[in-house]
């Protein structure tokens, strides 16, 4: 993904067309222009510059248009899966307004609910109801920031950490165990539980790191395998004596003590918790680590070119291990939020949901930059929160959110495609700045 020509990109075409047009209309006008002293080419105004840049293939525009494209595909899926609306297309040529009206009604209502569930509901009457969408969004965002940062950090070092899911699983296990097994005072208990989560993830990241460093075993394969080992370990652990909730027969562990839970930001019905502050702190820390610290420099050097880094005296093996330990710790922290926050209070087989895999998408969408990752996580959190409302109010399955998320990332991963569809002007950036070790 480092260097490749952009095939089929309409680079410079608009410019040359413009020139062609100018020369074509030139001859007659040139005489007039030459006679006046203001013959200098006109400087583009600020507004025009803004517009030009807006329609150029920069990071922001490509991301926005990817979102639009994804929502268009999502709308098509909604329409073709609704028998009532589909029926109106049977007589489309006779009365097209029926079909278009029904489709618009369905799609606009669904996306309106997506917005109302994640940002603001104009119909809210109480303060709690008004804050509720934002609160939900932040609740979903916090763990995604961590897993996104985990994947992004590894990316920058040239490693593809697909194991954020497994690392989060180990994190949630240790955090929960510390949360209900250790009798500690409030405050300290929370600190220990959070750190336990980080340690769990770090251990699970260390394994592929050391295997990569020592034997060259590809981290993609090993992290995939470790994901599943972690899940089976979790399902085994939950039903063991001392872990399983004694009042229950199904697979659920004892709940985490109140002293180990992250404090809420608002009062009871609102779920947002202080995990979001930890997420912001972690983003800042990773940004500092990557851009300001020696380790970050070495990490980026190894990611850019391991051979050159080695020649420069950087220990590639040590860097690989450290990257994976840090990435694992971040994912473990993300996992710990799932049980120390308000999402759940006890271990279940599905307690980590999809946060590890979503983290991969978040990292890619955030262009593997810490603050970009945080924003991407916010978008994904909003989609998740809005998806819940969309499901209950317009009975559009929550799975549509997964489709939207996957499509957005597919489109931003191939900016050439978005550029071609919208005939964007060429611009710098807009490409994933990752350099992965190719192949297995």
């Amino acid at each position, binding site marked *: 993904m480092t260097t490749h020509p952009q095939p089929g990109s309409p680079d410079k075409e608009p410019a040359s067309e413009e020139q062609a047009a100018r020369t074509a209309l030139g001859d007659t006008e040139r005489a007039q222009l030459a006679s006046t002293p203001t013959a200098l080419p006109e400087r583009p105004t600020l507004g025009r510059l803004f517009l030009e840049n807006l329609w150029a293939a920069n990071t922001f525009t490509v991301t926005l248009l990817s979102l639009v494209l994804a929502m268009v595909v999502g709308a098509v899926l909604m329409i073709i899966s609704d028998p009532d609306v589909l029926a109106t297309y049977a007589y489309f040529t006779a009365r097209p307004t029926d079909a278009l009206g029904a489709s618009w009604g369905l799609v606009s209502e669904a996306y309106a609910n997506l917005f109302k569930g994640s940002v603001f509901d104009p119909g809210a009457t109480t303060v709690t109801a008004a804050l509720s969408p934002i609160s939900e969004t932040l609740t979903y965002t916090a763990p995604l920031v961590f897993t996104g940062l985990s994947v992004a950090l590894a990316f920058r070092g040239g490693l593809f950490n697909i194991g954020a899911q497994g690392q989060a699983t180990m994190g949630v296990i240790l955090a929960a165990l510390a949360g209900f097994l250790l009798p500690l005072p409030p405050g300290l208990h929370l600190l220990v539980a959070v750190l336990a989560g980080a340690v769990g993830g770090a251990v699970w990241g260390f394994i592929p790191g050391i295997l*990569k460093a020592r034997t060259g*075993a590809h981290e993609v394969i090993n992290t995939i395998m470790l994901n599943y080992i972690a899940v089976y370990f979790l399902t085994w652990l939950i039903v063991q004596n001392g872990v399983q909730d004694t009042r229950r027969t199904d697979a659920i562990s004892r709940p985490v003590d109140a002293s180990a839970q992250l404090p809420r930001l608002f009062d009871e019905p609102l779920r947002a918790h202080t995990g979001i502050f930890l997420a912001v702190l972690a983003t800042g820390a990773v940004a500092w680590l990557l851009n300001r610290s020696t380790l970050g420099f070495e990490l980026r050097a190894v990611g850019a070119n391991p051979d050159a880094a080695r020649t420069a005296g950087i220990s590639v*093996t040590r860097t690989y291990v450290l990257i994976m330990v840090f990435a694992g710790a971040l994912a473990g922290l993300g996992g710990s939020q799932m049980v120390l926050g308000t999402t759940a209070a006890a271990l279940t087989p599905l307690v980590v949901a999809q946060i590890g895999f979503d983290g991969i998408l978040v990292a890619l969408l955030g262009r593997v930059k810490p603050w970009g990752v945080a924003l991407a996580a916010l978008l994904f959190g909003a989609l998740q929160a809005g998806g819940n409302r969309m499901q209950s109010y317009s009975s559009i399955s929550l799975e549509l959110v997964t489709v939207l998320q996957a499509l957005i990332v597919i489109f931003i991963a191939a900016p050439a495609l978005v550029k071609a569809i919208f005939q964007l002007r060429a611009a710098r950036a807009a490409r994933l700045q990752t350099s*992965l*070790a190719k192949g297995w």
Partner: protein
Amino acid sequence: MSTTAVPDVAVAPVDEGFWTRTRKVGLVLVALGLLATVLFGALATDEPARFTFSEDAAGAALEINGTFGAILFGLLTLAAGGAMLAGLPKRWFIPLLAVGLVGFVLSFLCWQVSDAPTGQNFMPLVNIVRGTFLLALPLIFGALAGVLCERSGVVNVAIEGQLLMGAFSGALFGSISGSVWVGLVAAAVGGSFISLLLAVFSIRYLVDQVVMGIVLNLLALGITGFLYERLMQTDAARYNSAPRFSNWEIPLLSDIPVLGPALFRGNIFLYLALLLVLVIHIGLFRTRWGLRTRSVGEHPTAADTLGVKVLGLRYRNVIMAGAVAGIGGASYTLALFSFTKNMIGGKGFIALAALIFGRWSPTGALLAALFFGFADQLATYLGAINSIIPGQFLAMLPYLATILAVAGLVGRVRAPAADGKPYIKG
């Protein structure tokens, strides 16, 4: 392995000094043998362990005293390990390894079967073999899809998504049309659809193939889950009641003891899987297409110089792989179950493991898939006899085995050289 990218981290000691790879593996086998002899032998009871040639306790059976069997087979493993340590020639490596591992498994089984509750001290071999193949089926198809893709240089992490899409479209179109054959074709098309996306984005738009694979898995999960909830859950009779292939009995062959009832009274997918292994094996290693595919996967520039259309071949193979995986997905929905959300549940990743464990070859993938299927079936069996071994740990076995294989502890695995590298002509 990405040895070319990071040479210094990929230096594993290759047969240096006394501790050659054979001796290391021998040491592991000796440890396993000791474990089996002492621990399994001590835990096994004096009940006879019966391995019946049928689906229940009746009929002919192999029978052995539990303690005696556990110790005997444990000693066998010990002997195989000892022979390796003694430094036997290299050509004995594979047979000895096989003897050692089989001995360990048998010792383990003697313990487990003899230790089962009274009246259940038997293991129905027909059930075990049939279950092994049944559970291995999607793995075989998935791993073959991986072989087709990766031998031509495109990493296929999207096997999970291809299986899922195949299962879904097989169920959907099979139900709508009421025909198993339409369902089968639709499944192949569904799998190819995911493959086509993988091909276009990784070959045309040069998106990283692993990234694309992961994203496509999520896309397939989302699309099938969404349409499942919208269509199949609301009107299951119309959209999710696909007809199923019945079992075909092959005359003569089906009378072979154990293997006959287990293998030759199966459905079309079982025969198709075995046939595909054969076809792809011959295709890869005996035909012009295979030579070209392998050369494109190893050194596309050289292949291009000799006039092979690299990108065209990659497109074709990747799409074919999708069709194979799609049919694998249909082996669920057109033979066993109706479609449910995320019904593949990670089988695609075990198939990926089987592909790697089987060293990117069709026959290797088949054997690895069968091994993983056996581990799965064994977990079910042990659960049924209330074993103290948790099923979850047996379920981990495929993944652990793959990690060990990739780390070079059990032989080296090496991917096609150009696997995952986009080819840019010029």
